[in-house]
C-alpha cells in the first residue's frame, strides 16, 4: 500500500523531510518503524527510542500497534507541547 508519512519537530529534523510517500506492507506503525530503521541511519536516529514518540493514523492519535489497514496518512512526532 501507499502511505503518506509525516514527521514533526525533532523527528522531522532528524529524518530531513517533513513528508514523504512510502510503499510498504507494514501492518502496524511499529512494523513501519522497523522497516524504515533498516532503510537508513536517519530513521534509526529518529526512531531510536519509541517511548519518546507519538503516532497519529489518519490524523487520530493512536498506539504503535494499531492497524494500518485502509490507512492513508501516518505521522510520527515527539510528545506534544501546546498551550
Amino acid at each position: 500500500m501507499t502511505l503518506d508519512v509525516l514527521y514533526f519537530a525533532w523527528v522531522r529534523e532528524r529524518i530531513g523531510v517533513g513528508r514523504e510517500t512510502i510503499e510498504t506492507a507494514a501492518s502496524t506503525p511499529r512494523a513501519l518503524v522497523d522497516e524504515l530503521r533498516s532503510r537508513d541511519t536517519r530513521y534509526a536516529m529518529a526512531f531510536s527510542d519509541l517511548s519518546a514518540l507519538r503516532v497519529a493514523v489518519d490524523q487520530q492519535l493512536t498506539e504503535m500497534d494499531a492497524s494500518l489497514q485502509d490507512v492513508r496518512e501516518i505521522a510520527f512526532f515527539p510528545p506534544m507541547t501546546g498551550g
Partner: protein
Amino acid sequence: MDIRVQIDPFIPGALLDEFSGVQTGAGAIVSFTGLVRDLDGELQAMEIEHYPGMTEKALMQIIEEAQARWPLLGTLIVHRYGTLTANEPIMMVATASKHRKAAFEAADFLMDYLKSRAPFWKREITAQTADWVDATKADEIALKSWD
C-alpha cells in the same frame, strides 16, 4: 464552538469581548491566556509548529469532551503557530456557562488536554540554543487527573 489556529497575533481583551458578545443566557465567562516566557530575558524567539488538519480535529474533540462533561453555552480556543517573541500571547481559551464552576473547570480541562493532546510543538531560541521544549511529567499527571 469557536476554534482558530492562526499565524497572526491576537488581542486577548478584544477576543474576550467578541466571545462575550455572542453568548446568550450565560452567567459566567472564564478565560485563560498563555504568554511566551522570556527565559529571564534570554529568549529571542519561540517557534511553534503544528500539524495542519489534525490540529483542528484534535481541538474539536477536546471541546466536544468538555461539552459532554459540563453544561457549557460557548467555548473558544485560539492557538498561534509560527514565530513569536517574548510576552506575546500564544493561545487563549474561554468558556461560558450559566454558573461559574462549570466555566472554571471546563477551562482548566481544555488547557490540560490541549497541552498534551493537540499537535503543537514549541522551540525556544536563545543566542546560544534552539531547543525543542520537552513535555513534562506534570502535564501527563494533570491530564490523568480528569480520568
